[in-house]
């Protein structure tokens, strides 16, 4: 059997999403048509997603028969870099409260400057500390955003 192409894979996932949304909406109640219930619109949206994805699946299957194949989405790109960025973002979100804004930001910027496209250490140190202090001054001191404080009070 020929390998599925990108649109076929995408459409299959969307069909599952659409069906899940439509089924999930049923527990909120669709209500009668003259007084639609809480689940009415999400149910319609779920059905629309599944229907459109089915159309997409049919069209991409026809294309597959004409030779449209799977195109690797990560070929020729430095895919480890986006992965590092996502990991850094998740770590920042989880650590910003326990560590506090300043320390967490220094580590975050320092990591990105050093790990993604490696910069010289002086650039990393000055860049991370300078950016953290600058952002703290603008957002915390000037704009009064309540950024999280760590156990050290900053």
């Amino acid at each position, binding site marked *: 059997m020929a390998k599925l192409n990108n649109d076929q894979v995408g459409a299959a996932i969307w069909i599952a999403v659409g069906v899940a949304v439509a089924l999930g909406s049923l527990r909120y109640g669709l209500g009668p048509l*003259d*007084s639609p219930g809480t689940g009415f*619109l999400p149910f319609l*949206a779920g059905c629309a997603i599944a229907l459109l994805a089915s159309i*997409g699946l049919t069209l991409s299957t026809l294309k597959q028969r004409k030779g449209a194949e799977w195109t690797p989405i990560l070929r020729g790109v430095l895919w480890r870099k*986006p992965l590092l960025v*996502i990991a850094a973002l998740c770590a920042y979100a989880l650590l*910003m409260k326990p560590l506090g804004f300043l320390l967490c930001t220094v580590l975050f910027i320092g990591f990105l400057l050093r790990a993604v496209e490696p*910069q010289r250490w002086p650039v990393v140190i000055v860049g991370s500390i300078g950016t953290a202090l600058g952002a703290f001054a603008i957002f915390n001191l000037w704009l009064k*955003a309540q950024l999280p404080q760590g156990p050290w009070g900053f």
Partner: protein
Amino acid sequence: MDYLQSIILGFQVALQWNNLLFCFIGVLIGTLVGVLPGLGPVAAISLLLPTTFHVTPVSAIIMLAGIYYGAMYGGSTTSILVNIPGEAASVVTCLDGYQMARKGRAGPALGISAFASFIAGTLGVVGLMLIAPPLAEMALKFGPPEYFSMMIMGLTILTFLASGPMWKALLMAAFGLFLGSIGLDNMTATARFTMDIVELSDGIGMVPAVMGLFGIAEVLLNVEHSIKRTVFETKIQHLLPTLRDWKDSLWAILRGTVIGFFLGILPGGGAVISSFVSYAVEKKVSKNPEKFGAGMIQGVAGPEAANNAATGGAFIPLLTLGIPANSVMAILLGAMMVHGMQPGPMLVQEQPGLFWGAVTSMYIGNIMLLVLNLPLIGLWVRILKVPYPILFPMILLFCLIGAYSLNNSVIEVLIMVGFGLLGYLFKKFEYEAAPLILALVLGPMLEAALRRSLLLSAGSPLIFITRPISGILMLISVILLAYPLVPWLRRKRAILPQVSDEE
């Protein structure tokens, strides 16, 4: 209140020192995000929305609007000097702008682009002032069915103009509607799909969604490659266009203004599409169409005028009907709601100071941009030379702070990161995020209009076609949706330019 009194009132508001300051900050930041590739007005407005919580609503709207039209000015600088569009609406400016720079005419290209932006931006505001109040009056006659049909038409137009297969764009819109339904039901206050997460009771925030889909996803795509930008190394001189340049550009500017303004009004239209249409028109009316792409000044003046006029036009459906014409307007709608305002037909009557203050501030903002931009070109060039590996951590940090400071919640940050990943996958699988955002914002309004209409009609969906205005709007939507069945229409859509996510 007649026009003159309204304009005087507007200037009284716009000329207050704090509003002038916020207008200045807005246009300056707008120019900056326009200059910087990979950071558009959508992300910038979302990012700065939380910073406006402490100021008056009118100052906030003046600043956020300034970012939008300021970005249109800034985008051309990068297109002309680096051959990379600073933001989506400046894609076309690369074609002739960069060629002009290569021929030693970077100065006139930057100059005419600034003047064209100023003329079109100002005329666009005049159009906005003339059309918005009567349209708002007419919109008072709209009921839930008309609003529902209008929103459906907006979504349909956006999906029609989106690049790639239409089923993907419609699917994104449907997914956006589902995401918009997460949270408390407006009518019964029942929680939907919240998974017992308190932060989801108010629904998925538009700001984390937009910053994730546009800001984070863009960074993820950019870091996949080692980006090296080459800023055109030339001495930029003679910024003021010559008489010959003016003669060549004047009609292009005026045509671009008209095209941009009217395409800007259309829900789903906007700055990107109007700049492409303007370029196509200029090429068509030119005596030397073969020279386009080799440094024709009309190819810079027309599209730059069009994308700036479109910003004025885009405010019309937002301020008069409460319906955003594109993603930027969708965020502005959200911003106005955060500040306790309800854009729509009553806005002009109930809050004339805010309406006219915001509109007249755009005149002042356009003058500021003209005065600022030409002397600051050296600064923008220096900023463009900051390497991306140093710039992107700061963009990410601003996104993180923006998402967190909305509700001081880590959940919002995680939602943003989730949308970033989703946006990255959408790009990889060629799904456009713009219909999703518009549907996410319109979702709750659309649902309310749908349910009220069905209540009114005792459950008959015919109400959407038997009422004349609603019927016409629905007919337009059906025609657009039926296009794939008509081969010659499909061929026409295939040549439409790609509408970027930044719209």
